[in-house]
């Protein structure tokens, strides 16, 4: 916040508060580190409390400055979460595609956000550690649309897909759930960087211009109308041409 706006850009610039939520060790910090520093650490230690980071994202028509709260997934910090999502305009709810229980946890977070966060909040569901799945991610998602919205848990049959495939959450399961709830949906790898910038760019694009009020734009004040917009336009938004957009 302190120095936003200092960058005299021709394009309008606005800040977006974003919060990351999800079970411990799913890779929240790793995603942020990939996005902010384009770096990855093999054995990252758990976050204590929460970390605050900023990163700019250049869109064709404007610059978005993300103010990111990377929260700790450990249970004992859960009670602090409202403090971080209360005014957030966007949330990244992360699970680990090798761990079904983490999708269940993600679903709880989504429900909590829908109940308690700003009504217009843009939520992206992100399945991380895609590098651990042997098959191409696109093959998983291409046939995913017809699946029932059966949440989580039954990842077993996907295990047959390939040798050494650690995937336990089928793409279609998560995708169906995301569609039903009107969430953005991505599978990413913080390790390889796959799809990471895309998530943030998609979120940046998903925040309606009307809700952006310069550097201090606050999601909590947005109207319900905008929320409708967000939901309709963004479902399934695997944004194209995003990669070059972000300053990472």
């Amino acid at each position, binding site marked *: 916040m302190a*120095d936003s706006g200092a960058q005299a850009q021709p394009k309008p610039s606005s800040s977006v508060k974003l919060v990351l939520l999800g079970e411990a060790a799913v890779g929240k910090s790793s995603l942020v580190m990939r996005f902010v*520093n384009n770096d990855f*650490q093999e054995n990252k230690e*758990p976050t204590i*409390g929460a970390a605050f980071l900023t990163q700019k994202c250049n869109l064709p028509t404007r610059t978005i400055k993300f103010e990111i709260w990377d929260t700790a997934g450990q249970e004992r910090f859960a009670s602090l979460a409202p403090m971080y999502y209360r005014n957030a305009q966007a949330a990244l709810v992360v699970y680990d595609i090798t761990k079904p229980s983490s999708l269940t946890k993600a679903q709880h977070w989504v429900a909590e956000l829908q109940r308690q966060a700003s009504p217009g909040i843009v939520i992206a569901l992100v399945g991380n550690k895609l590098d651990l799945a042997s098959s191409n991610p696109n093959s998983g998602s291409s046939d995913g649309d017809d699946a029932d919205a059966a949440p989580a848990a039954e990842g077993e049959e996907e295990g047959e897909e390939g040798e050494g495939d650690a995937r336990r959450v089928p793409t279609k399961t998560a995708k169906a759930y995301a569609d039903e709830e009107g969430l953005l949906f991505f599978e990413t790898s913080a390790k390889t960087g796959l799809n990471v910038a895309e998530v943030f760019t998609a979120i940046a694009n998903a925040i309606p211009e009307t809700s952006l009020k310069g550097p201090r734009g606050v999601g909590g004040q947005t109207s319900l109308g905008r929320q409708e917009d967000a939901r309709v336009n963004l479902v399934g938004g695997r944004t194209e041409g995003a990669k070059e957009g972000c300053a990472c």
Partner: protein
Amino acid sequence: MEGTGNADPQTPGTSLENAPTSSTQKNDKVEQQDFINPTINIIQSASRRTSTSGVSSISREETPPPLPPRPKNLAFFDSRPSSSHSLAPTRPQLVSKATTQLSYTDTQSYNDESREESLSSGASRRKNYFGLNVSRNASDAEDNVSVRSFAPTIEVGGDAESILGEVIGDHEKSLLTSLGNRFEDKESESLFPPDPEFEETFKQEFDEIEEMKADGSNEESVMLQWRAKLKHFLILSSAGKPIYSRHGNDQLITNYIGVVQAIISFYQGANDVLRGFTAGDVRFVVISQGPLNLVAITRLTESDAQLRAQLDALYMQILSTLTLPSMERMFATRASYDLRRPLQGTETLLSALADGFTRGSPSTLLSALECLKLRKSHRHVINSTFLKTRSESLLYGLIVASGKLVSVVRPKKHSLHPGDLHLIFNMLFEAGSVKAGGGENWIPLCLPGFNNTGFLYMYVSFLNLEHPTEQVQERPVSKEGEGDEVAILLISANKEGFFELRGMRDDLVEQLQKNGSIDLMRGAVRQGRPSCTDIVPGSPLRHFLYKSRGNVQFTMPSFDPYFQTALDRRRLMNLYHHLHAHLHTKPTHLKIHHSTSTTNISLAWTTPLFELYCVAPATTSRAALAQAANKVIQWVRKEEERVFIIGGAVF
């Protein structure tokens, strides 16, 4: 467990009764107003307090600290068990063989002094808190007596006369120096005799133990790896549930936990609180804190009191995660409660602490902090900038550079506990999580020395000294905290205070940059610790630790060039532990302890104002060592306001 042999229940002492629990339980309701814990006042220097007892801080600057009295008689040795005397030659593996006590005299007067101090100074109150007050526990004395050797000789008496004074003439001095030169080759050698077995063990100390295979085929090798560790820490609930172990997984440690638990309950059943026992060359020390039993198992040279201080620190880490009332609530509902769940993620912090103890930490040994050496006027500017930019909800503010304190700001009535700072430093500089995270952090934590019933919130920002206003993207990876890391820590009781404190940080950093303080800090960090010969040209000392008791701070020279590896440092710390245990053994109250081995000669010296530990090659004479020690004292006196934070920013 082989041969739990001579398990000796120790006489209940008083050190545990001074633990924080007892003093704070009554204040459960108080949220952040509980400041009656025995905390240490690192800033409000005890010199002010001791001035009431006749030693003003001014006089401390002007006049040399009182030299320890000369030994009047050596008859004191009569009280030593004669058997220990004869043990000496048969224990070549001890770092220091022929141990000689030089001054047992004036125990009475020393007692008076120390009692006065314990009434008036924060320093000794802290010691109690930490359970570090070794001298309270008679059993330690017995321990040491049984192991250490005392070999009074006529020659010792002669040296004893000379050690305390400046007896060496110039001629003699130059002779010594030239001797030193002649032995230069020798001097570059290690201060410690080679000990391949220890070296090998230490090298593997921090390696992970192999996973036990499902079919148990590698059980034996796993057990061997486990047993080869120099040090173990176990934490279990009083119901016997494992909570933490530094080495090995549950499967591996269950047996041990079972045995330890059985022994503890045996003694508890006998209404006798188990303190420690020896099995072979392994020492076990147990402390019970409320619903927890903490066990240290060591093959290193450490006294029970030193181990208890380490266990206390682990316990404080657990309280820091949970707070005391919430931990008690958990066990109140179910005695068999599994504490590992709420502690999830705390293992890395506990292990960072444990490994710090295993590597050896002067800070823990002395229960004191190290400060970044800065000119008094420079520190003053930083302090006043801190005060000027202080925001509403700030409780404590700290600037820490590569693990050393630069400046502290605090409210007049509230002091900072060194144990709490140790936990914070451990989290920031030893455990990687915060350091590696990037960005700024907002961390809820309980500072048990301050108040073990509630959480505070800590804003952490690491500065890039080259471009202080920019975000630090990647921090130097440095285990020893010797990188150019400067952290700004702002602590508040306000859960929602992040942006307020962040604003303060921006302000503070901008001002510090404007008034040149950032450059000064950078310079001081770059410069690092001086070497012994920077401090006293020509000094034979290889290393020393100087603790200012009143300030609860210590200073030391660089580990380079003589102690560059972790192994060298561990062996140096072994020596310091040994010296420290001697100084803090109750019945002796000795003021000077002198120790020699084939490869080194060392000295420990305590007065109400300071503790000094120093070591030189064995070629150094006692007189030269004593003189070098005196020179260090003089140097510290001259540099006192630079190496220590005295006064400081209070609002």
